């Protein structure tokens, strides 16, 4: 009980953390420090609550009546909640500390306080979503989360593109909420109450409908591929620590919703897992391909979030197939991998967004083709970026490797075994995962090369210097956590085992992941690898007499090379963009070179979001063209509106009896 009370207290503190700052002057930094302090208090309370719960291991719940006509204030803690809570209590704290320098109140007097209020509210409402066990409470918390994310992401609302991205987000999130309304209403019809407690039996039609609604409703928030349209714009236009919170944690709330719903209802059909697997493959491959094609540093990261959500969906699909087929090893590897990847992605994507923020802070642009050569000015930032990139590309010894490795093993297990229980098509997931991994490496090579390597393309870089410790410390904490999970995953994996048991409703004693995946061996190999890297690094550094000739990176034997004569981000990705042209539809403006003295030309290549530009916007344009006829009804005259009320009352009176 203490643990839940601690966490509810933490939620309350997080929710109000931004408000005291409103009393301070909008030009002083004191209010912002107070906000960060409150978030720290809330996070520490929450983390200790979560720790206490894991130590005792008893499920706790609380139920209070309220004045609303439906539902109760019903909250509970279980291992599944704790996994997501851990992320919610870490990332906002780091983000808030980061914001002390990145979004200084004294430099942003017009919107700093607003950002503080909604940042805290976003963190608190996410935690409430995770502990809510009542449909009404859930949807209330969900809506607070969606709205505070909208306000936090659009703090620079004097900028047109920010406003536009905000509207797209708001529309998308509300379409999702609409599906959730339908889902919870059906839920209360099927089960007789708004209480979210597991159901043992349910007709396959009912369960299937709930699953589809959950997939669409939560899919909008998670950003799975056809529903992702809001994601790149909102992430790119938000302040970087808000992007980190949105991408690292808020997207995971969509995943949490799908996970929670599938925990509550029995898995009745095989198509559930298959659908999720296919959606995951599409999101993963398309997400990373789009990521390669972008030239906006934050859009690249945003699309890579879609890719990671795809990976999580592949793993969840595998787990659902396993639950249907009764294969506990698929369930453990799939679900364990999915949850681990949720945590991992939350950590390394926050690291990368923080990193992108510091770069943007220095360069005042998000276009990677304007950057370059930052490695020499900001070596620590560069190292942190590379660590994050290694993690996100699923390379050992970082944590991304750990989760994807579990998923790989699980997917391979679908082809071995006897014919009845094997599902060879699921192994397609492994192929997709490999494709995604290699494309991710390409994307981050492009990003690192364009931003940090080569020669500077912009004079601004002359003023660049290493980021301040306030910016570096949150990144370092993320990196250390990533490395820790990558090298010593055992404690985390044990928690995941409990969560998996809860989700799969297996009563048998927790099947240890250690039986299926040789984690200890991996730990040892990772430790050896890590020490080898450190060893060689030291040797290389301390080696006497290394030659230090300063040369431009892309000299190529030209007598007078300019800084424009080097690989840009666009040209690095060009081959892959052309290869995937059928998805990306790149629009480029190419120069025609003719004659001995060709005229001046400029080259431009843009890849827009195919789904937004080719499907959704044309649809809205069509609607905008034809639907104004309906506006006749909206005349702006009170009489007419009262008349509508009158007509409806009379119709209701007549129809009702």
């Amino acid at each position, binding site marked *: 009980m203490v643990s839940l009370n601690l966490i509810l207290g933490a939620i309350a503190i997080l929710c109000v953390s931004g408000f005291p700052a409103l009393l301070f002057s909008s030009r002083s930094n004191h209010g912002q420090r107070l906000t960060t302090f409150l978030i720290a208090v809330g996070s520490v309370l929450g983390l200790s609550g979560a720790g206490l719960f894991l130590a005792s291991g008893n499920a706790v719940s609380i139920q209070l009546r309220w004045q609303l006509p439906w539902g109760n204030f019903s909250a509970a803690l279980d291992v599944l909640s704790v996994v997501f809570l851990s992320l919610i209590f870490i990332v906002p704290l780091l983000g808030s500390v980061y914001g002390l320098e990145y979004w200084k109140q004294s430099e942003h007097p017009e919107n700093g306080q607003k950002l503080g209020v909604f940042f805290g509210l976003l963190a608190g409402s996410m935690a409430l979503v995770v502990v809510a066990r009542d449909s009404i409470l859930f949807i209330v918390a969900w809506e607070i989360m969606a709205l505070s994310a909208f306000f936090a992401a659009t703090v620079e609302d004097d900028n047109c593109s920010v406003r536009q991205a905000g509207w797209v987000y708001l529309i998308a999130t509300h379409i999702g909420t609409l599906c959730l309304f339908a889902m919870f209403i059906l839920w209360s019809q099927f089960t007789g109450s708004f209480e979210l407690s597991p159901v043992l039996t349910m007709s396959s039609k009912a369960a299937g409908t709930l699953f589809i609604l959950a997939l669409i409703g939560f899919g909008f928030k998670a950003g799975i591929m056809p529903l992702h349209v809001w994601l790149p714009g909102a992430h790119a236009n938000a302040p970087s620590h808000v992007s980190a919170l949105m991408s690292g944690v808020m997207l995971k709330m969509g995943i949490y919703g799908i996970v929670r719903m599938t925990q509550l209802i029995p898995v009745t059909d095989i198509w559930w897992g298959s659908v999720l697997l296919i959606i995951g493959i599409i999101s993963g491959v398309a997400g990373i391909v789009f990521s390669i094609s972008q030239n906006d540093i934050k859009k690249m990261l945003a699309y890579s979030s879609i890719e990671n959500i795809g990976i999580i969906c592949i793993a969840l699909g595998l787990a659902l197939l396993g639950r249907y087929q009764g294969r506990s090893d698929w369930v453990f590897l799939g679900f364990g991998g999915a949850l681990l990847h949720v945590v991992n992605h939350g950590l390394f994507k926050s690291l990368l967004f923080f990193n992108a923020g510091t770069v943007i802070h220095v360069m005042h642009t998000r276009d990677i083709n304007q950057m370059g050569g930052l490695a020499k000015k900001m070596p620590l930032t560069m190292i942190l970026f590379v660590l994050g990139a290694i993690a996100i590309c699923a390379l050992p010894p970082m944590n991304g490797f750990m989760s994807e490795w579990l998923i790989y093993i699980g997917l391979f297990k679908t082809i071995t075994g006897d014919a009845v229980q094997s599902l060879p098509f699921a192994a397609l997931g492994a192929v997709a995962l490999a494709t995604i991994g290699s494309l991710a490496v390409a994307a981050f090579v492009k990003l690192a090369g364009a931003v940090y390597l080569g020669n500077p393309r912009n004079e601004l870089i002359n003023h660049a210097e290493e980021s301040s410790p306030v910016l570096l410390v949150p990144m370092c904490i993320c990196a250390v956590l990533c490395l820790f999970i990558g090298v010593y995953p055992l404690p985390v994996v044990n928690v995941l085992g409990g969560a998996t048991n809860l989700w799969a409703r297996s009563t048998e004693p927790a099947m240890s992941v250690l039986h299926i995946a040789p984690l200890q061996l991996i730990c040892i190999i990772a430790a050896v690898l890590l020490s080898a890297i450190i060893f060689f690094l030291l040797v290389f550094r301390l080696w006497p007499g290394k030659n230090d000739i300063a040369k431009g990176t892309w000299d190529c034997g030209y007598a007078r090379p300019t800084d424009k004569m080097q690989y840009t981000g666009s040209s690095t990705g060009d081959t892959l963009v052309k290869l995937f042209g059928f998805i990306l539809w790149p629009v480029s403006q190419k120069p025609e070179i003719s004659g001995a003295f060709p005229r001046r030309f400029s080259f431009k290549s843009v890849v827009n979001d195919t789904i937004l530009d080719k499907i959704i916007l044309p649809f809205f344009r069509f609607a905008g063209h034809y639907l104004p006829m309906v506006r006749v009804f909206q005349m702006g*005259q009170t*009489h*007419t509106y*009262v*008349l509508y009320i*009158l007509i409806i*009352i*009379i119709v209701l*009176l007549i129809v009702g*009896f």
Partner: protein
Amino acid sequence: MTNILNAILVIILVLNLFTLGTSRILTVIRIVAIQGFLLGFLPLLAHNHFSLASILIVLTTMILKAFVIPSMMSQALRDAQIKREFEPLIGILPSIILGALATVFALLFTSHIPLAQEHTGTLIVPSSIATILIGFIIVTTRFKALSQVIGYLILENGIFIFGLLLMGAMPMIVEMGVLLDLFVAIFVSCIIISKINKSFSSMDTRILSSLKE
């Protein structure tokens, strides 16, 4: 008692039609005042008991609906210097016919709904529905701001009649609260009407919407 109650309710229904049948706004205000005065008796008649609370509400209702509100409205009318509703959406005769139809509809409708035993003999439900509908008709068909205020007042009268059914169940304080709301709303709109008229010289709500720019 029921006979007297029904008689008063019938008078109220007839007054409703009167409000539809005249274009002189001052007359309409007077009719509404009479209606409010009659309404005051209803709580006493409907429940046959004379507690301090019920006498209090009777007095408040009468004073507010029969004297204070009408005098405020006629004051606003004088300030606005208008006498008639010149161009209603539908003419005087058609609106009387509409009102009669609404009354018939209310009576027919009431015969179809299951009522508690003690309410079957009275006209409370049909007259309240008819009054509400007529309030709606005035609000939708008259364009002078003052006429609309009157429409809302009649609408509230209908709700007041319906409230008689709940007299035992609903605390008196609720009814008092409703009266207070109504008083404040009309007070404010009367002030606004005379102020707008001074600076804008028109009371037509269709034109008033151009004020928003």
